[in-house]
């Protein structure tokens, strides 16, 4: 059976044109997807059964779901400051349950944006964000800037579907209708195919963005001969190209958010984009990684008022990034347990945070073995959302789509696991 219009549960592109061949409840072939997406849908090395261990140096022993769930609930209830982290490779339906559970145990609710596009959220809080849907850029944008991102490797179909080769109503020649500019510290594969590659010195993005703002405002006289490794001449030339665009778009990645100046880079990148709207139309959009990390921000925002780093211990959500995000709290050794779902703290947190995680009980809910598993005391395997379970996800441009189910499996969904943990937590606490 060929299932069409399948939505890919890998990256924030949420390509929705996949065709998946299923026979005898097994995925046989994945068409139109990139290699990474196809690999995820085909499946690999999943965790087969719930596992527990007392000490992190012990071998895991297989246990029943009930035993793992009950112990997870006990740990959450016994913790003063439980972290509930991840929420990016899972569906919105789980996130809603996660917020409820965090309220019940007074947990810290945080998503992977904390170590990714969290600074982008802070930039948005400072300056807003002029943006749009990916189809708007495909149909209109003739000047395309990739800043600190490398879609060839990280979002492989982004360029063909939305940004570079895509043909649209006002861009019917596709690539030929567009000027592609890549700003990066190294000549990435994306830079190789650009019309302009601008090599910025590491950690100096802010300076270069500031110089662009000056050039756009016709104040090139204040720009030194070289800024962040880029010549004044090139800066003035590119600023003119931006102002001359019919529709310009800046795609930015962690090369901007996780380098020196962090959220200030986004603040000034948004300001530059806003400035350009005095001359033409310009938009800016973060390249989101996990397929539903955008959804995590959306769900947390409508449920709690905040996108990440939400401390539920007061009974009312409290947000203060720098104080209430995962790594702030791990490094202060304030957290006394961690519940990790739909994200991989083990792979992406700094060493100091990992050192703390090694000392506290860690519960992992995930279909796959990953570095977090190595630090876990309880591992609860679940369905692969978007392959084995239908539900909601938000594309990087906040367009909401319904992921499809392709095959049936016996594993429980994240939602069922969360429901059971929540019920057990209430039972232990003696609340209805």
């Amino acid at each position: 059976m060929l299932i069409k219009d399948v939505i890919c549960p890998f990256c924030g592109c949420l390509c929705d044109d996949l065709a998946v061949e299923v026979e005898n409840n097994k995925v046989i072939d994945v068409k139109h997807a990139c290699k990474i997406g196809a690999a995820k849908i085909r499946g690999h090395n999943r965790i087969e059964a719930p596992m527990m261990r007392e000490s992190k140096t012990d071998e895991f022993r297989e246990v029943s779901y009930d035993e793992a769930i009950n112990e997870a609930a006990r740990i959450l209830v016994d913790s003063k400051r439980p972290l509930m982290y991840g929420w990016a490779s899972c569906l919105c339906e789980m996130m809603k349950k996660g917020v409820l559970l965090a309220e019940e145990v007074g947990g810290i609710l945080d998503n992977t944006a904390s170590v990714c596009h969290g600074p982008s959220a802070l930039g948005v809080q400072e300056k807003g964000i002029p943006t749009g849907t990916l189809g708007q850029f495909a149909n209109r944008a003739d000047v395309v800037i990739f800043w600190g991102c490398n879609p060839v490797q990280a979002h492989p179909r982004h360029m063909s579907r939305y940004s570079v080769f895509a043909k649209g109503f006002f861009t019917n020649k596709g690539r030929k209708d567009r000027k592609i500019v890549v700003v990066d510290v190294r000549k990435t594969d994306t830079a190789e195919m650009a019309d302009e590659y601008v090599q910025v010195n590491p950690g100096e993005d802010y300076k270069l963005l500031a110089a662009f703002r000056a050039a756009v405002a016709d104040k090139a006289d204040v720009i030194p001969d070289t800024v962040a490794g880029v010549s004044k001449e090139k800066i003035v030339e590119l600023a003119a190209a931006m102002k001359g665009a019919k529709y310009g778009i800046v795609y930015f990645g962690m090369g901007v958010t996780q380098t020196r100046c962090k959220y200030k880079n986004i603040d000034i990148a948004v300001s530059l984009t806003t400035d350009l709207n005095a001359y033409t139309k310009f938009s800016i959009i973060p390249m989101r990684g996990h397929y539903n990390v955008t959804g995590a921000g959306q769900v947390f925002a409508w449920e709690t008022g905040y996108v990440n780093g939400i401390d539920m211990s007061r009974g009312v959500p409290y947000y203060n990034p720098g104080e209430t995000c995962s790594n702030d709290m791990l490094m202060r050794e304030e957290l006394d347990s961690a519940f990790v779902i739909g994200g991989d703290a083990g792979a992406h947190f700094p060493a100091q945070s990992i050192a703390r995680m090694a000392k506290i009980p860690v519960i992992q809910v995930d279909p796959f073995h990953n570095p977090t598993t190595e630090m876990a005391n309880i591992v609860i395997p679940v369905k692969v959302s978007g392959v084995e379970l239908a539900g909601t996800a938000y594309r990087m441009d906040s367009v909401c789509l319904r992921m499809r189910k392709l095959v049936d499996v016996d594993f429980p969904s994240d939602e069922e696991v969360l429901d059971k943990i929540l019920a057990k937590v209430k039972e232990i606490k003696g609340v209805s």
Partner: protein
Amino acid sequence: MSELLIKNAVVYDPINKVNGEKMDIAVKDGKIVDSIGNGADVIDAAGRLVYPGGVDAHTHIAGSKVNIGRIMRPDDSRLNNKPRTKITRPYTGYTVPNVYAMGYGYAEMGYTTAFEAAIPILKARHTHEEFEEIPIIDKGGLTLFSSNWMVMDAIREDDLDRVAAYVAWGLEASRGWGVKIVNPGGGEAWGFGKNVAGLDDPVPNFEVTPRQIIRYLAEANEKLNLPHSIHLHCNNLGKPGNYTTTLETFDICKDIKPKRDRQAVHLTHIQFNSWGGNHWGDMESKGDEIAKYMNKNDHLTIDMGQLVFGSATTMTADGPVQYANAKLLKARWANGDVELEDASGVTPLSYHPESYIHGIMWAIGLELALLTEDPWKVLMTTDHPNGGPYVNYPDVVTLLMSKKKREEAMAKIADLTFERTSIATIDRELDWYDIAIKTRSAHSKILGMVEYGKGHLGVGADADIAIYDLKPDETDSTIEYEKVKAALRRAAYTIKDGAIVVKDGEITATPMGRTYWVKSTAPSDAHDRMMADLKMKFKNYYSVNFANYMVQDEYVHNPVIEECGYA
């Protein structure tokens, strides 16, 4: 099943012409009934004010715009915080409350129904995701068709039936209740950073005018026999001198014959479109001109879009307006272009009584309501949260009911306001019957919700009832406005579908409400022509596949579906 008797109520139910009558209201299985048995639960209203549950026909409560507001404004989420209880989830936010505070806040004021005023079809699933989480109140939404390529291409080819077929499809795709038009054509022009200047300024690349967009959609609306009329946010909003465009827009639908017992067009938050002058320096009110038109014509209704001093988060599909706001105020600016369909923008701002601009805006909203004679023609709204958050409705009510309250407010407002408006000369004070019309009954009538049992207390109506801790017989609303405000802010009882959800201003139960949407049909040949064009656009221009676009049933909880179509 459950039975309830509300005794000794002083009832205002304008749809049934009940004006302050002391009576009992009987409720059975969630509906108003003639009488019930002796075993019913009893609430003794003891002469207190009883209204049908409040209905808000124009508010921004859910979806991508509201949520970007929350994302941009952690400063707002810090306000109005209330921890979770055994019954309620935590409250956060003032202008952009979280989903829980959104539902609780309405219910606490005796409101039981609210309609989201702008759903972009491509992002409709998001709107319904939030609807699902907003407790207690019933919901519906208005779907945007203002700068839609399907609509504009069909208009250019003078194919009215194809416009209607697309409207029918778009309403189903978004699970929407009515046709919303925001700055017609302006959203498309904004795609390249431009705007349309007036009703006859052609939309770039599409060769249709805003006037045509309004006209065709109004006609399509009647061909489809939709419960609500077109719901229009005029061109040139927020610009001094825009009242001429507004008056011209009023005339466009003058000869449209509504298929149902309602207006031919509803023009929303008209305060923002009643401005005279040529620039900010000489801006003045033309609220009196607008009201004069309202008094002479019966084909239209409007809502106030009242300004409330303090913090607001402006959000609209009118993209260029938000850019202009942000630039003027050096404020944060979120823009949200939606491919093939529309634009949008969100900008936080604050209204100050010291500013005569804001003073004039404040006065215009009140002029519209007080100078238009027929209370049914002007709804009380703040265009939440554009003019200010809906939690301020009780304050707006007191301004309408009390000249003394207005004078007290005016003492703090910039003097120039009173040279440029007529507010200081208006003596009219609305009564409880007028307020019932302006806060529930007319909202229901204008939306086409009367037959769904909203906005009235006739037999068969939904038992959505508000009891306020205030005795109309013993309260002089022209003087005791603090008492009025306090009573309306926290209902003594809010009853939803016959169940008590608020007692003494506190939430006591959180049932989930319904979602109303319209499934309409056009002739099959027009539908086929439309689908051919639609499939072409999905193949070539949309970033989402056709099969993944339409909102699925899973997202619409407790749906109530109106079915209608060509007669």
